[in-house]
């Protein structure tokens, strides 16, 4: 929908407005040809260039896995780069660790704060600086922090333990802690992910103030309205490469969304057979789920998944998908609302019971949930179904390892898991083979509903293709598939319907045939359409 006007604001409470303050155009920070290759051969960054002027707020935009965080970890001395140069004020610098970076005035505020919950804000801010606990030196330190608070507007009650402060205030303490190291380049990684709209607006005010004072700010984000509201320039990364750098003033949300999601590179998948019967298998109604912080991560979500359908949830990770899956698979309670599997309520039900009701769950984080790395292939093949009578002897309780072996061997063969033996520990397999075993185990349950979270993340092309085909087989056999994936191409190739999730809400549901890559990109970035029911 190029040409149509899209409002610049997405998140509530966010003011539209021109970027703050004038900026000197001369380059101060320069990253040239940054390349990062991980030991396993993954090329996370490929000759990335980035430049920023003094006092500039520079947005770093991209999908999951685009390389934003990796690039900034290199700049803050956390990760070493494979090749490339970093210059500040024209002089090349070497960053071996975070102390080197701080010495050059580069500080990063991470998504997950490094604060001691039981210490006061002041103790946290001074932590690691060898600050005295009392006496005149401490008074001086306190005065210095107070001055910093006055200069920046980052007010924090200094004598209250961090754990008693709201998230937004904790973040201020974290920023103060970084600024107290005389930082002239402040990197913020998705700083608004955990903030309320009011806290977000306050943070933006502070960042504008800092920018006017000459601090350069790099903002990692995937939210288009934030980029448009706050930054002077924006660099878009995709698959570890720079797509382009634009002055924000001339850019539109559509341009940026297009740059972010890129051209279609749909993976080939198996033929989609027409399904005559529409019959809901999973019904979710007005479901709200709390995140770990106690605030709603899934907000009032409603949708249905029919048999013979792949219903995909697209979105940048961290927008409530994980919590939604957990609530539907018995791992997290629902705060309100309903979910039914074949007419039976499933919220708050034990996973084992759900598996018996016809649920298969391919977990998002297979290492954490789906497998036990130290146990053998055989033992992993019955995780979750180990209580079923078919794996037990007549003698009460005992496991029948002969039957388990047969079953494991069957899964290994049918799903083409490559392993030297059934007793090989799971951790000795490649990621693709581990995932094939997990997927094989789940799909062997003859499920009515398959919930698949990021099923191909981190897999090689061949393994990913196998797993996509298996999901399509499930659909063609008349089972319901709920696919959650941050890979837009995968979603577009597999889905019969796509729901886009942003900040815990389903923003729109699109039918196959009306899939519009750019519109989905905008929705993923928080622009367009309000909450929708599917």
């Amino acid at each position, binding site marked *: 929908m190029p040409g149509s006007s899209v409002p610049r604001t997405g998140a509530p409470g966010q003011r539209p407005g021109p970027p703050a303050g004038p900026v000197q155009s001369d380059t101060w920070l320069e990253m040239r040809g940054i390349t990062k290759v991980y030991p396993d051969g993954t090329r996370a960054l490929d000759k990335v260039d980035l430049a920023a002027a003094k006092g500039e707020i520079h947005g770093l935009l991209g999908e999951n896995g685009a390389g934003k965080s990796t690039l900034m970890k290199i700049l803050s001395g956390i990760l070493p780069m494979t090749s490339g140069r970093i210059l500040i004020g024209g002089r090349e610098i070497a960053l071996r660790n975070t102390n080197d970076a701080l010495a050059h005035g580069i500080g990063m505020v991470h998504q997950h*704060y490094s604060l001691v919950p039981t210490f006061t804000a002041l103790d946290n801010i001074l932590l690691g600086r060898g600050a005295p606990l009392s006496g005149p030196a401490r008074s001086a330190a306190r005065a210095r922090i107070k001055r910093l608070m006055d200069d920046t507007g980052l007010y924090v009650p200094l004598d209250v333990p961090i754990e008693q402060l709201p998230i937004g205030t904790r973040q201020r303490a974290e920023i103060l802690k970084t600024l107290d190291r005389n930082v002239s380049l402040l990197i913020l990684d998705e700083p608004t992910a955990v903030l309320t709209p009011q806290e977000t607006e306050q943070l933006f005010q502070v960042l504008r103030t800092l920018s006017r004072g000459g601090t350069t700010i790099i903002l990692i984000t995937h939210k288009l309205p934030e980029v448009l509201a706050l930054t002077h320039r924006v660099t878009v990364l995709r698959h570890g490469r720079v797509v382009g750098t634009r002055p924000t003033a001339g850019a539109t949300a559509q341009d940026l969304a297009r740059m972010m999601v890129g051209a279609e590179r749909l993976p080939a998948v198996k033929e989609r057979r027409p399904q005559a019967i529409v019959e809901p298998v999973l019904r979710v109604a007005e479901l709200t789920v709390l995140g770990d912080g106690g605030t709603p991560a899934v907000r009032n979500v409603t949708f249905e998944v029919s048999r013979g359908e792949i219903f995909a949830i697209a979105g940048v990770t*961290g927008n409530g998908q994980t919590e939604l899956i957990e609530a539907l698979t018995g791992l997290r309670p629902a705060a309100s609302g309903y979910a039914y599997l074949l007419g039976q309520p499933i919220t708050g039900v034990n996973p084992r019971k759900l598996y018996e009701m016809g649920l298969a769950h391919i977990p998002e984080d297979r290492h954490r949930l789906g497998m*036990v790395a130290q146990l053998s292939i055989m*033992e992993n093949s019955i*995780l979750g179904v*180990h209580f079923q009578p078919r794996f037990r002897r007549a003698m009460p309780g005992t496991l029948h390892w002969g039957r388990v072996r*047969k079953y494991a061997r069957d899964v290994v063969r049918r799903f083409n898991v490559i392993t030297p033996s059934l007793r090989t520990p799971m951790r000795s397999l490649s990621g693709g083979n581990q995932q094939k075993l997990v997927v094989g185990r789940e799909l062997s349950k003859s499920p009515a509903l398959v919930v698949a979270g990021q099923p191909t993340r981190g897999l090689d092309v061949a393994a990913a293709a196998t797993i996509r085909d298996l999901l399509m087989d499930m659909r063609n056999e008349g089972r319901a598939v709920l696919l959650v994936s941050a890979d837009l191409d995968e979603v577009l190739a597999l889905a019969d319907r796509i729901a886009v999730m942003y900040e815990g809400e389903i923003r729109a549901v699109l039918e196959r045939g009306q899939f519009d890559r750019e519109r989905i990109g905008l929705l993923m970035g928080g622009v367009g359409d309000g909450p929708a029911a599917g």
Partner: protein
Amino acid sequence: MDPRPGDDQAAESSGAADRRRVVRDAAGTAGQVLLAAALGLIIGAVLMEIAGYDWTRAYQGLWLGAFGDPWSVADTLASATPLILTGLAFGLCFRAGYFNIGGQGQMTVGALAAVVVGAYIPVPTPVAVFLVLLAAGAAGAVWSLTPAFLKATRGVHEVISTIMFNWIAFYLALYLAFYSLNDPQSAERTVRVLPGVRLAPLLAGADATAAIFIAAGIALALYWLLWHTPWGYEMRVAGLNPSALRYAGASPVWTINWTFMLAGMAAGIAGATQIIGRPPTYALYGDLSNLGDLGFDGIAVALIGRNHPIGIIASAVFFGALGSGARMMQIMAGVPLDMVRIVHGVIIIALAAPEVWSIIAKSLVRRRAARTEPVSAQAPNSPARR
């Protein structure tokens, strides 16, 4: 998509390959243990050489004292008996991911229960022995379930609570042994258990009784539980990946409680074997000296036995041998008891080192992983244990 019946011949051949693999793994572990033991003996020899003792005669004495004649073997086995059980009490919990430091207290209340039931309930022998073991096991289970319950419901760390329960048990036993259960004829100990429940020596004049079979039987039963039942499977999953346990539909609360209960029973029965299965006392000393530090020694026994029930039996016998060989080391080589203890300590450290190192390495890897992988503020909490 139900599993098809498989090809049995292939199953056999892959089964054989798997069995070879198991044998190879076991041989590797055994080799590692022997190497560590040899290293410990060499360092011990060097120490004795420096201190001016004849280490060849000392080790000769150690061997003779531990295995030189049937009575020495019986002595070794008698010392091993309670260590097998307290070793299991630690090892089982460790398999499920918990540190049960409370074996000492669980054993102490088990011994108390054994004295009470054994001395005051007159029933025919087999029933009486069974009753004593049951009461001791139940007492140990109660002692371990309280910390388990606190852990499961309130998140109280089990190391803290089990240590506190050790002290409660210690003073409770001191009090009861002096004021309630003491023998009017013999003030230094409690009343003796009735003759019907006293397990007879396997060999006239030796310390070992049928208690060794009770201990070994419990070890085998726990081995069976861990590797051949769904509950044991869940315990092992709990110890290796607690999140996967929830995914598998098991309740972490139940797993904690079951594991601690069984561990407490093993430790409680260890207390009972010291009362009914260790001639000639058949009572609890007022200073609890016939319990000693057996509960704490169980931790070392379990670590050296790689927290595997069969390994724990072997490890306990090794500890027993060190104990019963100590006397002959002193007699034959004139090595003072303190030196004997130092040499024992060196051997034990050398044996425990690989296991301790793997625990440290594991936590280092975990910490490194936590540092290199970005943890978003919204990511679900990683298991906050250990």
